[in-house]
């Protein structure tokens, strides 16, 4: 591995991420899968770093799951997106930040489509006006929430209570990073680090003391893949994708996985349990699984949040092995309290 080569690519794929004043839109499925992640994110940026993040209860789904499942056409999707932009405009914000990778991909795709086909944008403006009497400005900056944490990574590191260091060995924790496909695979220039060697999560891990693992199936889908899972008959395919990734990463002995997508942590987490049940195989140390985290959860651990306030008890794969390595104290009984 030639680190300089990666650094050169990373330097070519940097994006402008605004400093403050964000309009934040939550993810519809993350609030079910990892409900404390968005809460933690807002607590970090608002209360620890004193930034202005606005959200509104009028925000809805972006329509991404329906779109990628072929149940709504692009025109409908774009009109939903236009309504979200109208909410941002009415709130007086220009920097749009999506919590969800699929939403980020949808917003990026919509803005790119409008750039190349302005007549489409006009049509959508007309649709939105007819349906809601709303008008909108396009965001000046579009970021994913992981872009924001990436930008703030050094500030978080400066406030760190725990670093990604194995307290038993003193060595950096070995971390698998997995970005959501819709973060930069469709539009490499829109993601920090591009598509082939994304840096958004790597930058966080480096800043917080960990070491990134590059393994052969790093680019492979987590297993969600929308239709791979949403169509029930395809679920074996979903599982086999995840299985392939774990078989590939196991020789590198990862301590943890960090993700920035709603689906990826869910499937990498849940399917480990299924594989263990089906084949009796686990991929972590001591017959345990490899703990899987959202980037907000990792930031929370670094900043010293209580693991159970971060919602780590809803993970299928136990997180305690990683907490122990990081030297985080926790009350075992609290894990099961509401």
């Amino acid at each position: 591995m030639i680190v300089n080569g990666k650094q050169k690519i990373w330097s070519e794929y940097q994006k402008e991420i605004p400093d403050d004043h964000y309009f934040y839109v939550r993810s519809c499925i993350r609030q079910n899968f990892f409900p404390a992640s968005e809460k933690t994110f807002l607590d970090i940026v608002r209360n620890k770093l004193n930034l202005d993040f606005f959200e509104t209860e009028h925000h809805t789904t972006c329509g991404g799951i329906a779109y990628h499942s072929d149940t709504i056409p692009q025109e409908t999707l774009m009109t939903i997106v236009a309504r979200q932009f109208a909410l941002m405009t009415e709130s007086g914000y220009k920097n749009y930040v999506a919590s969800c990778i699929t939403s980020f991909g949808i917003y990026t795709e919509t803005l790119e489509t409008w750039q190349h086909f302005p007549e489409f944008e006009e049509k959508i403006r007309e649709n939105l006006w007819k349906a809601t009497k709303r008008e909108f400005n396009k965001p000046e900056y579009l970021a994913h929430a992981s872009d924001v944490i990436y930008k703030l990574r050094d500030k978080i590191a400066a406030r760190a209570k725990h670093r990604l260091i194995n307290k038993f060995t003193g060595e950096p924790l070995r971390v698998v990073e997995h970005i959501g496909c819709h973060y930069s695979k469709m539009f490499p220039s829109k993601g920090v680090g591009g598509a082939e060697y994304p840096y958004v999560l790597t930058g966080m891990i480096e800043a917080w003391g960990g070491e990134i693992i590059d393994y052969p199936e790093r680019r492979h889908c987590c297993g969600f893949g929308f239709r791979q899972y949403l169509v029930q008959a395809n679920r074996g395919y979903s599982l086999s994708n995840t299985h392939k990734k774990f078989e590939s990463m196991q020789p590198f002995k990862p301590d943890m996985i960090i993700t920035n997508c709603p689906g990826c942590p869910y499937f990498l987490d849940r399917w480990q349990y299924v594989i263990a049940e089906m084949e009796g195989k686990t991929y972590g140390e001591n017959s345990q699984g490899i703990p899987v985290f959202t980037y907000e959860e990792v930031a929370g651990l670094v900043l010293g949040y209580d693991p159970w306030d971060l919602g780590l008890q809803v993970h299928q794969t136990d997180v305690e092995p990683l907490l122990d390595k990081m030297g985080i104290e926790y009350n075992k009984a609290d894990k099961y309290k509401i």
Partner: protein
Amino acid sequence: MSKDVLVIGGGPAGLEAANQLKILGYKAYIVEKSEKLGGHLAKWDRLFPESISASETLDKLLKPINDISVFLNSEIVSVNGTDGSFSVLLSNNITLSVSSIIVATGFSLFHAEKKEEYGYGIYDRVITSVDLENYFKKHSDNRIINPKKIGFVHCVGSRDEKVCNRQCSKVCCVTAIKQACEVKEIFPQSEVYCFYMDLRMYGRYYEDLYLEAQSKYGIRFIRGRVSEVSEDENGKLVVKAEDTLSSKPLKVTLDLLVLMVGMVKNDDNESISNLLNIRVGEDGFFKTANPILRSTEGDSQGIFFAGASTGPKTLPETINEAKATVLSMHNYLSKQV
């Protein structure tokens, strides 16, 4: 009418053109932006399809022009005058008065790093065809240590809309096969795979080389493009591709992957075109007055082309074109008063 002619570029086209100019009694000046003559030929070991020595070929091109004025590390700064009388200022502050200019600026090699998915500059054992040729010359490269499994990826940066290079580089197919055979000669126990889109074996003896690669050397040809390259825990390369003949995805672990980098336009073609009042095509190579009947002439009077400055060419094509270019130029100058 002055009999002085400027040749821009000291590669095979420029060297051959200078030699032909000398034979016809012209005074040639060669301006070369790099520190030595020979162009890409100087980096090569052996030439397809008959494995002729590149250095001996270059020596034969250099020998007849040892008395010609050569300006190394020099570029054109400005050109004044048109239609048969040019005053050319070089970056070394020398001004030349010439009656004609031959553009023999050649090509650049595609930067393999741009195909990020292949991992050149990221993974230690991913090299280019140029790196391999250098290994053949020097027998030393710490990335090439008794490889057991070797892959060649054709069309890297050629015929690829994604990197804005639609053109075929013409030489990569046969070069890959030549290099695959040579690598088998050095490492006879190795398994060698060629990943290709289609094989363009159009030249004399090319098809014979292709057959020999299969029958004598047992090289395996896989019709399909490589999708991604990564490294396993032992530092070996995990290469994913599609075998379009069996309609199946394919994954193979290799010790060495060679990227056949294609020919692309030079970065300074645009500025040279402005200086000489000539045009470049969509592919960035220079545009000739007529692609069929006047393929060595520029739009402007007194400007001529030789070699790969007007698009990818093989070495024999380049040498032949240099001869034709000088003849065209001679005919043009003979009509001038």
